[in-house]
């Protein structure tokens, strides 16, 4: 029986972990879970675990001592604890991998608090884009219709930076995000939030960021559905600070972008 615990169960466990890691990397689903800089590590770990699994399978270990109480081999003896160990190593990961979506639902977004102000976002990363950017023409990509292709985070940062504000103000932008009703600054009922998740390292630390979208009629839509908004960028002062508000010209349903997270 010790062979099962010292050879085959570790082999199956490492093989399963490796398969899950390589599957997420291979299918590109890893993009929703990790910042690009962490993804190569998952690929390497998946490959290395496959190697470890193969070694467990093909290079048998010396297990003659493993029945003894004093055996120091960590995976040697069959105990209830060992059974539990392998169950905990396999079941949660396997179940999570089978049922995990590639984005958070509205409840988690609300639990984390939707940031509509750049100062409430995780530090340095938000500033990188601006620091790398030169003149507005250089970094503001355009769509085929001539609209500025922007991300939610660009407008949040612009609201705090007068020079960036000039680059966006009164320009027509195209934004993609998820629909979320707004219950705070929406007295007329014609506003909603366009939300994206902003990731620092992994989805566990991602924070929802949003801009307000203002339409002509009462805002309605399926919560968390992906939409494309085309509209005019404004920065009115509300509650004593400039707030990014897009006056929508069109709101259409769209497919999720390839990278659902912002970095």
């Amino acid at each position, binding site marked *: 029986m010790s062979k099962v615990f010292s050879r085959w169960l570790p082999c199956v466990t*490492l093989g399963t972990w490796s398969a899950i890691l390589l599957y997420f990397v291979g299918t590109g689903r890893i993009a929703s879970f990790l910042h690009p800089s962490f993804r190569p590590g*998952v690929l390497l770990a998946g490959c290395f*675990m496959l190697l470890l699994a193969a070694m467990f399978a093909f290079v048998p270990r010396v297990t003659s001592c493993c029945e003894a109480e004093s055996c*120091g081999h960590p995976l040697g003896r069959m105990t209830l604890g060992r059974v539990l160990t392998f169950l905990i190593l396999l079941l949660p990961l396997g179940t999570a991998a089978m049922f995990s979506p590639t984005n958070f639902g509205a*409840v988690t977004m609300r639990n984390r608090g939707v940031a509509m102000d750049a100062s409430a976002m995780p530090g340095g990363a938000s500033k990188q884009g601006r620091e790398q950017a030169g003149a507005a023409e250089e970094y503001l990509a355009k769509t085929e219709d001539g609209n500025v292709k922007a991300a939610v985070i660009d407008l949040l940062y612009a609201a705090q930076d007068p020079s960036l504000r000039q680059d966006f103000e009164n320009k027509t932008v195209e934004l993609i995000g998820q629909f979320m009703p707004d219950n705070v600054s929406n007295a007329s009922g014609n506003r909603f939030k366009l939300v994206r998740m902003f990731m620092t*390292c992994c989805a566990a630390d991602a924070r929802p960021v949003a801009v307000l979208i203002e339409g002509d009629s009462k805002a309605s839509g399926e919560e968390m559905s992906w939409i494309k908004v085309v509209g005019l960028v404004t920065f009115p002062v509300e509650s004593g600070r400039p707030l990014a508000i897009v006056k929508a010209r069109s709101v259409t349903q769209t497919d999720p972008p390839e990278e659902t997270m912002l970095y």
Partner: protein
Amino acid sequence: MSWFTFRFPDFAFSFLSILFEGIPFLLLGSVISGVIDAFLPAEWLTRFLPKRSGIAIVLGALMGAIFPMCECGSVVVIRRFIRKGLPISCAVAYMLGAPIVSPIVALSTFAAFRGQSPLVMTSLRLIFGFCLAVMVGFLVRFIPYEKLLQRGVIESMPDRRRGLRFAAEGGEHEPPMVGERKFTQKCFAVVQAASSDFLDVAFFFVIGAALAATFNTAVNQQVILPLAASPMLSILSMMLLAFVLALCSSTDAFIAASFVAFPFAAKLAFLVFGPLFDVKLFFLYGLIFRRWFVFGLLVGLFVLVALVCDRIAVLGL
């Protein structure tokens, strides 16, 4: 809105992301541990370790600056070092110091706190973390190892009475002397040791990640915001947050910096306490140390970090 709303899909998403982020580092720690096991003769430790234990502890706490290691990886590495015969006080100093006293942590903290006294925050974090690592290392010196370590770790250690040299001679379960084995045999030994260590530690990492993912997704984090107004409450709440979020020390500064409502001292408490002790470390430390020590470390570090940060808050930082 309720303070707790559990949704399995969100939990699974967060749980997987923590595992995907942590597994490569855990594996790296396991491989380093395997390399130490197979290639590092125990007598090297006696040769290179300073004779005075005080200096050895200080050096242990500073080793992270040369060999940066995240908190998950350092636990695996020090377990192997203890088995090799490294004094426990030095190993503990490295284990606590490495996740904070590291160039990666310094750079990420400095970058995250741009515009929020980055130099002061980075310096205080590193100095405070280093001092705590040294302090715990010195305290551990006075505790008999039989009372400190788990039975399995003690059994795999060299005979303490005969010192480190005994380790090089090989115990009942020690492989033959590392110097006598062929390179390929050593490589096999690395892989075997790494896989065993990885599976051992991954078990606790999975449990810690599950708890952190539950808090990450199910608990309404807005409930802690009113605590920001009181200096002591803000410090305690940020430390609790660091404990349950279980973030990696190389990136936690970006999260801490985003809590703009919280004072400087509370963020410092988050950045110092988190890498020293969080929910996943609670389980990982239990792999090496006895439960009373793990609880004692938790309470001691919590109280000490809270008190020092409260003093820093009084100074007006």
